């Protein structure tokens, strides 16, 4: 830790860019040339003036604890290239950021932000206290209406599954994707996005490789299980009922337990379908030993707002969602700027990972995977088969999921290990293990694999 607080790597900065063009433009601004009047303080604020094509330089200021950005440029990209360039300069310990007096234009914004943060509001999207419903009775009626629509959707989906099973899965390969797409659309109409998502996945299974009928039957059965659970949700014990509601797509505010801890950022990765980017951030609480999953979404052209570089730890509150075995949480108040993390969380053996996943299935049978840390495992690369993570004795091993194969991060993992045991954090599920982050005893580095 130096006088400027914890700096990020260029990679971490570029991960914030909303698109490739911004990444390139930002990289070009990440040098001393166009910047003047810059500085940074120990609490994570960075500012600078960036000379553009016009006469008046743009005023750019970033609060890296957010991160939150402000720039006087007219770009609608967020963060803009100036903010990215400034952060890159900061990441490179750039000369022009050695000044330390906060100029007024930056100071006002920073002060405003910190006042709001201190008031416990923050200014992240979706922050702030939930608005009180104007009319509780109307709200209840609306909820009832929505539940009824979901029920109708679930019944329709049950019918569709029954028809499929009656005629045989063998025919599903021929019936084509259109039918599933139509059913998914009807689930969207029924305001059950969770069901819609499952249906789309069902549509992708036929013809997707060897054993597809088995996988289709499994997913049909679990969808059926969810339908049945929803139709009987009133009779389920409350934690399981909450899980079922979440699974069909009824979002609830995070009103579970609030945990303040030193949270290690274990992994951050994005998945996307072109329209929406979903960012997953895995946290691990040093004191509580709890794991939390933060989700953040970005529409096309915008990076999800939340960015917590892997390898840092933050003193913060996390509010969990309710539901059985829920890991999903929202980040609450942060009490200080992030600091470098101290190493991997405690972990288990190769055998512990599927056991932990199995135990989690008891609470939520629809879980695809469960976060686990493996200690003392050796990655076994393969040129044509699946990679393995084997325990050091070579007695047992987990396959790496097909989705993770072909990621450059796997080679980082092999390099870090060099054939010796390492610690790996990832998601273990019925398809195998997806490594996300690794640590080796040889180096203090936290190595992201995503």
């Amino acid at each position, binding site marked *: 830790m130096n006088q400027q607080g914890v700096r990020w790597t260029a990679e971490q900065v570029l991960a914030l860019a909303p698109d490739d063009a911004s990444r390139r433009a930002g990289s070009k601004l990440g040098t001393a040339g166009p910047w003047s009047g810059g500085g940074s303080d120990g609490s994570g604020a960075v500012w600078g003036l960036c000379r553009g094509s016009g006469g008046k330089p743009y005023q750019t200021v970033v609060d890296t604890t957010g991160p939150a950005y402000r720039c006087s440029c007219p770009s609608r990209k967020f963060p803009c290239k100036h903010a990215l360039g400034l952060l890159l300069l900061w*990441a490179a310990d750039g000369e022009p950021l050695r000044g330390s007096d906060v100029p007024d234009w930056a100071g006002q914004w920073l002060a405003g932000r910190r006042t709001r943060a201190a008031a416990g509001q923050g200014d992240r999207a979706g922050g702030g206290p939930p608005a009180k419903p104007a009319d509780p009775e109307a709200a209840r009626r609306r909820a009832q209406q929505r539940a009824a629509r979901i029920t109708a959707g679930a019944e329709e989906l049950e019918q569709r599954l029954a028809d499929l099973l009656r*005629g045989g899965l063998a025919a599903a390969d021929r019936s084509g994707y259109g039918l599933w797409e139509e059913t998914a659309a009807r689930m969207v109409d029924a305001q059950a996005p969770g069901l819609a998502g499952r249906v789309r996945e069902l549509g992708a299974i036929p013809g997707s490789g060897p054993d597809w*009928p088995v996988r289709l039957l499994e997913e049909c059965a679990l969808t059926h299980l969810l339908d049945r659970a929803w139709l009987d949700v009133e009779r389920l014990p409350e934690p399981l009922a909450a899980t079922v509601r979440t699974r069909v797509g009824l979002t609830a505010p995070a009103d579970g337990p609030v945990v303040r801890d030193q949270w290690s950022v274990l992994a951050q990765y994005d998945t996307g379908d072109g329209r929406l980017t979903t960012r997953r951030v895995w946290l691990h609480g040093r004191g509580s030993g709890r794991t939390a999953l933060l989700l953040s979404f970005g529409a096309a052209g915008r990076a999800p707002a939340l960015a917590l570089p892997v390898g840092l730890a933050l003193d913060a509150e996390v509010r969990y969602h309710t539901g059985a075995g829920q890991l999903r949480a929202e980040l609450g108040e942060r009490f200080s700027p992030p600091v470098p993390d101290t190493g991997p969380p405690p972990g288990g053996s190769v055998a512990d990972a599927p056991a932990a996943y199995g135990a989690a299935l008891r609470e939520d*049978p629809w879980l695809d995977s469960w976060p686990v840390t493996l200690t003392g495992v050796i990655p076994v690369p393969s040129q044509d088969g699946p990679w393995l993570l084997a325990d050091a004795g070579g007695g047992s*091993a987990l396959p790496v999921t097909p989705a993770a194969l072909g990621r450059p991060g796997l080679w980082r993992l092999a390099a870090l290990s060099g054939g010796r045991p390492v610690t790996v954090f990832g998601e273990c599920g019925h398809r195998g293990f997806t490594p996300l982050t690794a640590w080796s005893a040889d180096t203090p580095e936290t190595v992201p694999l995503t």
Partner: protein
Amino acid sequence: MTTTTWEDLVTSALLGTDRRAPAPEVLARAPGKDAPAALLDAAAVHTVRRRAGLLPAPPASPLPEPAPDDERPPLPEAARLRLGQLLAGRSGAPAAGGRRGTAPDLTELLPQWLAAANAHGHRAPASLLPALLDAGRARTDLRPAALTFAGPRGLWLARLNPDWRFALRGAPGGTSLPDPTDRDGVRRLWEEGLFAERVALLGAVREHDAAAAATLLASTWSTERAEDRLMFLDSLRTGLTYADEPFLEEALSDRSRNVRSTAAELLSALPRSALARRMADRASTCVGLDRTGGAASITVEAPHECDAGMQRDGVLPDPPSGRGQRSWWLGQLAESAPLALWPSRLGGRTPEEIVALPVADGWRDELHAAWCRAAVRQQDAAWARALLGPPTTPPATGPGTSSLAERSKLLSVLPDGERAAWVAGFIAAHGLSEAFQLLGVCAVPWTEPLGRAVVDALDIARDAGSYPWSFSGVMGLAERCLDPGQADRLEVLTAVPDEPEGASPGAGGYWSEAFQRLVATLRLRAAMLAELTGASTPGPR
């Protein structure tokens, strides 16, 4: 608990419950439900149970051998972050419209960073090895330094991924080369190895024991293909010593003409070799001193024939088209004769005095050109100095050669400091337009006088109102080669100047941009080097 197997359920599901009803106990467990729902119920139970009961399996293949240890110290933290940046920047697209903007070109700094890291003897961070190998795969010029830096773990990793196969060919330190003292291992690889492996093996054995290498080479020499013989011979160029002379002398009678002439060339680089003596005898009969006209001058009597002896010593009898036979032969004799011959032959004169002598009958250019080749081949600094002449002399009227390529070869024979001083003098006298090739052979970072000469010349070019891209080659070199300590002095040049009368429109702004990039790159290089020594960059105050 149902006894229905998963396979039963899959079969029913595949064929459809209308065609193949699920087992009775499946239906019995779901009273009041129809067959598909009962089947799905049972399948759900099975699925969750299967997933919850997953167990790890023993690996089918053995675990990988651990990578060999790398004893080098790890990089300081800041240097590791910097390397990550340089490697990530390597695919950065150039700025639109060909303008380079003010940002340093990270791609160009990677070779320098690697050289510096290797000079410090650091070990590459394991997590960056894949990016490092990818960079080496994309850029041949980076390979040697990248592979040295990647070290044993880099090679270990490269074996696992066919994309990095290049690393296993001719890697420094050898991939699977046997120990040079392991006679059986050496013998086996020499007889069975791929050509590249054999060349690497020969180099390794030579380093250890030159005589053993010659014996090894001689053992199969007569059965090698002509191309291979030529390549083997060529590999002797590095670390050539008199121990190689007997072998080379043999090779003078080789079947292949190219092999013969390469052997002769190598022998002539050994001024005390028998071949060099024979060439000296021949050359001295051709070149002599004439004192008749008062002032001394050199007379040249070119050979009248290319006899069998000359041909055996590598003289090519047939000139390329457009050149006379006799001057062709003379050139070959003079370039192969030891330079030490001439002071004694020409009245005890120094190389400078000899080069300054008039040469009769228009033989001057021919003779000087041959001496240039000889000075480079024999790495003779005194002669190179004499043939270059003072840097202020215009190339066209100087001694030696006016070719910049030949001159840069001559320069590379001089010691670093002298080389830089000569180029600085050349730039001060003649500007930058012809300096590029000469700058390329100067040691990095440039000495203070050389750096000052380049910057002054750029400043003059700017004042003259030309565009900076006319000097983009030199500018790029300056970014990589100027001493980073010069950044502060250059700062003043980054200001946008008033446009002088008759200047190219907008040139001032472009120059300012180019100098900004130069300063930014120098600062970056200074930071890079400081990070590698583990020193923190200079503080704010």
